[in-house]
């Protein structure tokens, strides 16, 4: 029987319009960018072994964290779940043969790669030291290095986000199989849908902002330039109007993945399905209203600070509801601790910690103290690495049999998942303490009092690094050598599990008709 993996020529891959192949193209690309960004993280952690900053020069260190932040955010985490798993699974899950605009989908990957190579060029030939936030006037006037190229790379890759988001929205609206009503959609699809809204409506503002910054740099004068009456804070407003919603791009699809996994491995429908779906939508929309919480100490008005703090608390309510619903889903389930579930529960745990520390940051006077310190660094690694990367790895393991048609070594995978969990906490928990004690972020050297905790953090990072290396190795191996999986090794529900693994190029021989409610699991039945 033919699958989408047949015809393995390079040419057929680079010109493919098949959403599944495009998903894999993204998989390779973001793994590549992740490797570079992780190497930068490793270098940073090694540099921070010494308080005096004698291992790595300041200018190099500053380039490292910029490289790390830019690549991790725009070239790894934002495309991770939507573009890899989303591309692969969305049409399968809604019962379609492909996305609405297959050509646009491929174009999106090329645009992404073009952006990526611009950024790589900028990094290799001189680097950029602005941080991933590109604050003006540093970026527009004072920084040296290839700020323009880097910004251009991010700008270009933004269009990839926009195209993909547009494609997904239209696909979900127009190509659902008969009977697949909105409230029968898997929560993963809801997650992708909300993410796409953010991609389509927030990314253009980033594009405009980077364009204005680039123009200012090119012409030596611009709208953020205080010398002609411009306001540098306007840059921050525009930047965070995108970037706060963007942090939800980096969590909502993960929430979808986790809902799929928890239901499958506890054999129960998700608790409070509709609330879960609306919570995702609520986070996506309310998420647009809180950006000012990144600017509490930037001399934004006190009134604005209070409003943004209030809204930040409100956007946290749906997240809280989701955490409680996942926990309750486990209750009276029939639970098997397979690798995907370990990742999913790891997500719930670490996202809770990350989210709760987000509440510290949303509390105005506390943020005044910890803004710009390692407390913030720890917060966002907990949600992004502890949260989203865990969800991404969980998803990759969960759908690996579908993607490759093969199984990975279960015991090794569980071991890797636990290693990641432990290494992660060891790396980033000390950073909360460091931050509260006052260690500023983006520091290539620091007072010796902070030495011990930094060493601990670096030690954790090396465990974490090993944890990441393992799946990389065994998944590649299993792709070729793993045991055949059959169409549905987990006995999971959902349309993607009704087709053979790996799926044929056209997905479905006949478009299915859906009559079941989502997650029709029964804990009393033996799977």
């Amino acid at each position, binding site marked *: 029987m033919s699958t989408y993996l047949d015809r393995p020529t390079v040419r057929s891959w680079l010109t493919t319009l098949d959403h599944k192949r495009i998903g894999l193209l993204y998989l390779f690309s973001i793994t590549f960018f992740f490797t570079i960004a992780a190497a930068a993280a490793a270098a940073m952690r090694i540099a921070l072994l010494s308080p005096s900053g004698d291992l790595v020069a300041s200018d190099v260190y500053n380039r490292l964290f910029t490289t790390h932040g830019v690549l991790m955010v725009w070239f790894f985490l934002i495309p991770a779940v939507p573009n890899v798993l989303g591309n692969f699974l969305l049409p399968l899950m809604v019962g379609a043969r492909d996305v609405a605009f297959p050509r646009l989908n491929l174009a999106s990957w090329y645009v992404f790669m073009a952006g990526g190579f611009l950024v790589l060029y900028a990094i290799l030939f001189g680097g950029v030291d602005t941080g991933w936030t590109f604050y003006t006037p540093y970026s527009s006037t004072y920084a040296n290095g290839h700020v323009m190229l880097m910004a251009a790379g991010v700008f270009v890759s933004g269009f990839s986000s926009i195209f993909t988001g547009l494609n997904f929205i239209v696909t979900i609206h127009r190509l659902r199989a008969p009977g697949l009503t909105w409230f029968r959609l898997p929560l993963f699809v809801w997650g992708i849908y909300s993410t796409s809204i953010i991609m389509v409506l927030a990314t253009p503002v980033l594009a405009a902002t980077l364009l204005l910054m680039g123009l200012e740099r090119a012409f030596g004068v611009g709208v953020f330039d205080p010398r002609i009456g411009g*306001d540098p804070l306007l840059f921050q407003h525009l930047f965070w109007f995108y970037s706060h919603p963007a942090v939800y791009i980096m969590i909502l699809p993960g929430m979808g993945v986790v809902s799929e996994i928890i239901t499958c491995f506890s054999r129960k429908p998700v608790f409070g399905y509709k609330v879960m779906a609306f919570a995702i939508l609520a986070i996506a929309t309310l998420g647009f209203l809180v950006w000012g919480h990144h600017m509490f100490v930037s001399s934004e008005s006190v009134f604005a600070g*209070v409003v943004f703090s209030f809204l930040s608390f409100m956007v946290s309510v749906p997240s809280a509801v989701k955490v409680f619903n996942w926990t309750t889903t486990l*209750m009276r389930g029939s639970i098997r601790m397979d690798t995907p579930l370990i990742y999913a529960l790891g997500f719930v745990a670490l996202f809770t910690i990350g989210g709760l520390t987000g509440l*510290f940051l949303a509390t105005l*006077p506390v943020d*005044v103290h910890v803004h710009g310190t390692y407390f913030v660094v720890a917060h966002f690694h907990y949600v992004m690495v502890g949260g989203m990367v865990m969800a991404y790895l969980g998803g990759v393991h969960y759908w690996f049999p579908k993607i490759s048609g093969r199984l990975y070594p279960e015991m090794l995978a569980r071991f890797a998942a636990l290693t990641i969990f432990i290494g992660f906490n060891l790396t980033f928990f000390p950073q909360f303490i460091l931050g509260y004690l006052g260690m500023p972020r983006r520091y290539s050297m620091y007072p010796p009092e902070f030495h011990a905790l930094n060493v601990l953090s670096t030690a954790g990072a090396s465990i974490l690094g090993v944890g990441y290396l393992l799946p990389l190795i065994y998944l590649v191996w299993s792709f070729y050598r793993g045991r055949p999986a059959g169409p549905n090794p987990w006995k999971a529900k959902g349309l993607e599990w009704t087709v053979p693994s790996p799926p044929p190029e056209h997905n479905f021989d006949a478009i299915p008709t859906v009559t079941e409610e989502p997650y029709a699991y029964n804990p009393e039945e033996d799977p």
Partner: protein
Amino acid sequence: MIALIEASNRAAQVDRLAAWLLAASGFVVLLVFGLIVIFAVRYRRGSKASRAPLPIAEWKVEAGWIAGTTLGFLAFFFFGARLFVAMEDASGPADEIRVVGRQWMWDVRQPNGRREFDTLHVPLGTRVRLRMTSEDVIHSFFVPDFRLKQDVIPGKEVLLVFTATRTGRFPLFCTEYCGSKHAQMKGEVIVQRPEDYARWMANAQPPAEVLAHGHNLFLHYGCSGCHDRGSIVHAPSLEGLYGATVPMADGTFRRVDATYLRDCILNPETVRPAGYPPVMPSFRGVVPESDLTEIIAYLEGSVAAP
């Protein structure tokens, strides 16, 4: 390991708020983690526990969670906002000190005109208002022991009010990324008893003779027209520049020493620092060698100023 000190009027209040947050978060984390572990064990596949449907109405549970978290969150919001509004009120009588952030130093001018770099002397128990701005990029004034932080923005004045409640020397950091030496833009806040502070203020030393003469020449030849802060021409500020390594427009780096400054003054067309337009006129044949040495000595000295 250091323990953080509570050395300002707001420190204890901020800590108390953080402690409440920590307690609530700790409770939630224990609850969630505990339940996950309990469920994972009790409902492991094949266990004897009952799998009958949950005997509760779903919507009631959901409503309870939404209401409960919203109320909890509102409480934190309320106490946070109340303290913040009080902290940010910068009006009322206070000692005024001017602070200018600059790559990569803090330039402080006390009420009586006494100037200091990278240190800030304040009297104990007195309300102090900092009038702050930046000369180049955004910096952030952070004193952990005071739980105090404020960004300084070029082209704009911001106010920051606090009262120090303990004598001693407290570290001061820049917490907004501002370039190569962001991590070195550090200093100290020195809190003295009011009488010690008054004595220190009275002690303003006059700058050394050479520096004064060099400075006069700096004014005389019009250098300050562009290189002073507040100048509308976009020229690098020269204070603290000597000895630094600066990026060139072509991506290379140069160390600022006597040769470099000479080049800048006499052959500006050969030196193109990154980020600045090439507007510097040549002073070849305008500045005699003797004056040149004095100006350079002044520039060299201005880094080591008190």
